[in-house]
């Protein structure tokens, strides 16, 4: 049974063209660019988000940096269609986000939500949800797990994995559906160095494969390693957007300079 019309799959009784995975995606339009206009959120008299104009398009990896409470997570969630702003609009390629288009959108939440089933089944589930049949889902899930270097954990319960394994599994699950764009909300916070490295490698590979990546990071070294663009937020506003090297070598704004210098910025 198909759970979603997302992939625009032909009805079951119709013969399917064997054109490989790309043929599966012909049924829906791309979701890039993702644009936000006049995004505004205020709580308890404080402006949590005030972003006039943001566009996520093209290719590459953007890392969102900024102190705690800058509005990074909030903006990502709003652009992902998970939260609604008080004011403003989010468009995915000109159309508001809708459930049937999440097959082209991936996101790894701050703390991974894994289903109470084995690791492999977690990935299979996501693939089935976007419309792949049982056999296809299983094959793709095996591949995704292998790409994440987790083949040995295929039948381990997802809920008892270590923190690093959980995060890698969540990432593998998001990547398995081959989205156009992938959001990651602090995917490596409080992970051991090996797990951090593994996740960065997976992200980099996806980016090299043409997937648009937006990632929140607190570790500036990591930001430098994985990104080709840095977006700095502070007090709910985007302060500066610049190519990675330029941002670190010659920040334009005073806030960015202070932030890079490790001076604490608390709003």
């Amino acid at each position: 049974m198909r759970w979603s019309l997302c992939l625009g799959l032909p009805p079951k009784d119709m013969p399917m063209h064997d054109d490989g995975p790309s043929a599966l995606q012909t049924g829906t339009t791309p979701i890039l660019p993702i644009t936000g206009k006049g995004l505004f959120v205020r709580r308890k008299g404080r402006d949590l988000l005030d972003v006039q104009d943001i566009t996520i398009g093209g290719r590459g990896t953007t890392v969102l940096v900024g102190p705690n409470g800058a509005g990074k997570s909030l903006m990502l969630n709003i652009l992902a269609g998970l939260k609604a702003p008080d004011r403003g609009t989010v468009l995915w390629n000109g159309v508001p986000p809708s459930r049937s288009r999440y097959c082209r959108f991936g996101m790894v939440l701050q703390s991974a939500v894994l289903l109470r089933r084995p690791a492999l089944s977690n990935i299979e589930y996501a693939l089935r949800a976007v419309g792949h049949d049982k056999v296809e889902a299983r094959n793709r899930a095996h591949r995704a797990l292998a790409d994440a270097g987790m083949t040995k954990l295929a039948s381990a319960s997802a809920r008892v994995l270590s923190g690093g394994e959980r995060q890698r599994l969540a990432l593998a699950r998001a990547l398995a559906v081959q989205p156009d764009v992938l959001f990651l909300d602090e995917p490596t916070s409080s992970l051991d160095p090996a797990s951090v490295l593994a996740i960065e490698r997976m992200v980099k590979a996806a980016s090299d494969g043409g997937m648009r990546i937006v990632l929140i990071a607190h570790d500036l070294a990591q930001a430098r390693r994985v990104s080709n663009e840095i977006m700095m937020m502070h007090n709910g506003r985007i302060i500066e957007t610049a190519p990675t090297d330029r941002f670190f070598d010659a920040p334009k704004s005073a806030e960015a300079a202070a932030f890079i210098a490790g001076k604490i910025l608390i709003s």
Partner: protein
Amino acid sequence: MQDFAASFAEAFQLVFGLNSGLLEVVWLSLRVSLTAVAVAAVIGLPLGAFLAVSRFPGRAVIIVTLTAMMGLPPVVVGLVVYLMLSSAGALGPLQLLYTPTAMIIAQSILVLPIIASLARQTLEDLHVEYRDQLMLFGLGSLARLRTLLWEGRYSLLTALLAGFGRAIAEVGAVIIVGGNINHVTRVMTTTIALETSKGNLALALGLGIILVAIAFAVNALVFVSRAAAERYAHA
């Protein structure tokens, strides 16, 4: 004290005498209460899940009502079901009064609020954790409900057991709608009531001991199979 000793002796005698009458009564008790729990689960779990994830005007009223109905007096439920199923009642033509089906209906009504309320609480907590992720899967609301129910399956079992406990132990409703008819609608609790009214206190208490043992056995069985299932899911 000698009453208690006599009761235990009665209980052992009943169990090891493998009295066919006792088996019949035990079997009917289990059949009625387990079916009632199944019926209540089929309605109550989706209802609880729906209340857990949706927001609409009047939702709070429904939740408070359901929670309050967890304490429905069995006698009142029995009376209402009696009035409905009575030949003079709305559902009289179905001829269900004084049948096990009538008892199942009454117990389902008793158990439904318990299952729905506990499921609602469990799933609402779970939903806080899962909401964003289920959204990201691109699931429709029905598929989301189903996934939540499945993810909460181990906790929801407790809700079902609470419902079963209520059903197997109640006497007020089944004695009114079942009539405590020998070989037809006589269950453990109505037998206990009958033996008490005959003044056979030791026998009544002996039956009570068996009832408690059965409830314990059912719970233990669920506990063990749940542990096994969890091991399997984690294996």
